[in-house]
């Protein structure tokens, strides 16, 4: 089953729309769903032109395709457990929150908190991801616990904060403090970033570019070969009695 949701232009286009009802499973019982624009509850078809092709018995057989100006659409795919969501443009905050299965593919950029506290499944973002991609929630001890997030552009600050499991891969640069407080899982930044793995307890963080403003409390172990690259291996964060692994191609301190 293919569900096509094309965003209609709205007068108050700047008010964000919360649409946690947009998960593949919900379309098994029709398109009679509700979303919120600010404090107003609206029917799905007041916000989108909805069209459905074919039918399905299981979430896995549902593909939802979002088009139009979706960059202010929040919480799409929240608690998703199977099926596919394809976003042709950009997507708003909290896309794929708590998802445990299925795939979300975003062709444009993703706003903050992409895949927050995700437990399983896969998110692919072809553009850039804003701050707190694959992170946890305020005050939480564990962020993402499983699944994969792959960003082809760059990522903002606090990427994979409190990462506890799963894999996060960024092909471009990342901002400040990727992998802060991480305790498990794997984080890979292909480009440069600043202050990776601050206060880490466990897990592995790879930086194939330069780690700028490197945190001074990591112990240098030596050089290792990793997938054809020579990387410098550190262990830390000592300040936090951490036993995590940080691998970097190059690094510079703020000395």
């Amino acid at each position: 089953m293919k569900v096509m949701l094309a965003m209609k232009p709205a007068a108050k286009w700047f008010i964000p729309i919360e649409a946690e009802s947009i998960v593949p499973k919900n379309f098994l019982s029709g398109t009679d769903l509700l979303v919120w624009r600010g404090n107003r509850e609206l029917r799905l078809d007041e916000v989108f032109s909805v069209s459905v092709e074919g039918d399905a018995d299981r979430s896995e057989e549902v593909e939802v395709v979002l088009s139009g100006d979706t960059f202010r659409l929040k919480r799409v795919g929240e608690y998703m457990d199977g099926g596919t969501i394809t976003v042709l443009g950009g997507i708003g905050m909290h896309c794929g929150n708590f998802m445990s299965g299925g795939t979300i593919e975003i062709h444009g950029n993703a706003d903050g908190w992409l895949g927050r506290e995700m437990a399983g499944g896969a998110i692919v973002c072809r553009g850039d991801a804003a701050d707190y991609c694959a992170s946890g929630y305020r005050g939480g001890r564990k962020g993402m616990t499983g699944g994969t997030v792959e960003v082809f552009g760059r990522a903002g600050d606090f990427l994979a904060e409190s990462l506890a499991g799963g894999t996060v891969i960024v092909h471009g640069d990342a901002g400040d403090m990727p992998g802060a407080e991480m305790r498990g899982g794997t984080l890979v930044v292909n480009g440069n970033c600043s202050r990776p793995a601050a206060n880490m307890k466990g897990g592995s963080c790879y930086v194939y570019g330069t780690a700028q403003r490197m945190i001074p409390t990591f112990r240098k172990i030596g050089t290792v070969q990793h997938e054809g690259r020579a990387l410098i291996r550190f262990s830390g964060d000592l300040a936090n009695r951490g036993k995590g692994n940080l691998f970097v191609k190059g690094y510079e301190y703020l000395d």
Partner: protein
Amino acid sequence: MIVKDAVCPFCGCLCDDIEVEVEEGRVVAVTNACELGTTKFMGEKRMKNPILRDGDRWKDITYDEAVRYAADMLLEAERPLMYGWSGTHGEAQCVGVHMAELIRGVIDNTSSVCHGPSILAIQEVGHPGCTLGVVKNRADLVIYWGSNPIDAHPRHLSRYTRYAEGFFLENAFRDRKVIVVDVRKTETANIADEFVQIKPGGDYAVLSALRAIVQGKTDTIPRTVAGVTREQLVRVANLCLNAKFGAVYFGLGLTMTRGKYKNIRNAIELVSELSRHTKFTISAMRGHYNVYGSNEVNTWMTGYPFGIDFSRGIAFYNPGETTAVDILARKECDAALIVGSDPAAHFPRKCLEHLAEIPVVQLDPYPNATTAFCNVQIPVAVTGIDAEGTAYRMDGVPIRTRKVISSDYPSDEEILARMYALMQEARER
């Protein structure tokens, strides 16, 4: 007439030993307050009555008309923002929260642009704090980190630290050491026993290094960290370890610089580390006299201290998304009520652009930068001068501010209660 033990409604010290001399309903002299406090008591020229924007002129309107305008504006909005609250009393803040819930709006206070990061850090690792009295009487080491009390909290030094007597200190002035950590040599740095100058954006690295040194892992620390030599770091760590009771006071130099709440978290974790060896506490130098109160009121009423979004009928909290600066910069609201603060004086331009596009009502005694963005401004009494109510000192101690003169101005609470009553009526219909 002399009013004794008046409370200064200016900074988070909330000094409660002020003497105010009143003649013919005007404040003529102030004793004990610092310059900032004195200026506030003496007052500036207030706005006389509510005003409504009429093209490019202002039109005088009645309080009833102004209250009605605000209530209608908020009831119509799909995502109203109610911001400010640090410059008013707790009773008014309570009405604000009730209103936000009723109209399903976002309520945020000025902590989102000052110590919000401190609160985020506290939510991650807790707050080993204490009252100012404990520091005054016990602390033999005080660290001001990214804060400059001589400028911002002038009597903090004389009432509680550098120049204060201490019950458990024989000779407080001699026995109490003061360390100042900052990116530039501030006036407070001049009166410190030790000044640590950090390169901008380097606080986090220095805090991490200190934590490792306290754990005895000095060997891994590079020779200099953000401009600070390893020798000085070791000396500072030893000063901390040798103190019987240490207190860290941090300001916007730590909360609003690179890394923000992670800086505070790191500082709290340093304090926890030190508390394995001696007694250490840490507290925020809160700016506005009742910004702490707005966090308290919001927390006991909604579970969250600032940035609370009631759009969906339940409280949702996510600073960075539900905070005023972010909402305005992203144009995510369609009306704003400003109470007890002046966002136009502090917010980035992008935010002000949106403020200029949406209807805005402000409650404030004085014309200020935000007035230029208002459709309606309602002058109110000043808490601590011609209105009374509860405020929370920077250490969380509630103090009831007093009325030192009488005026015809209604208080924030009265105006908000009238708006709220109109809204309840409208919603019942």
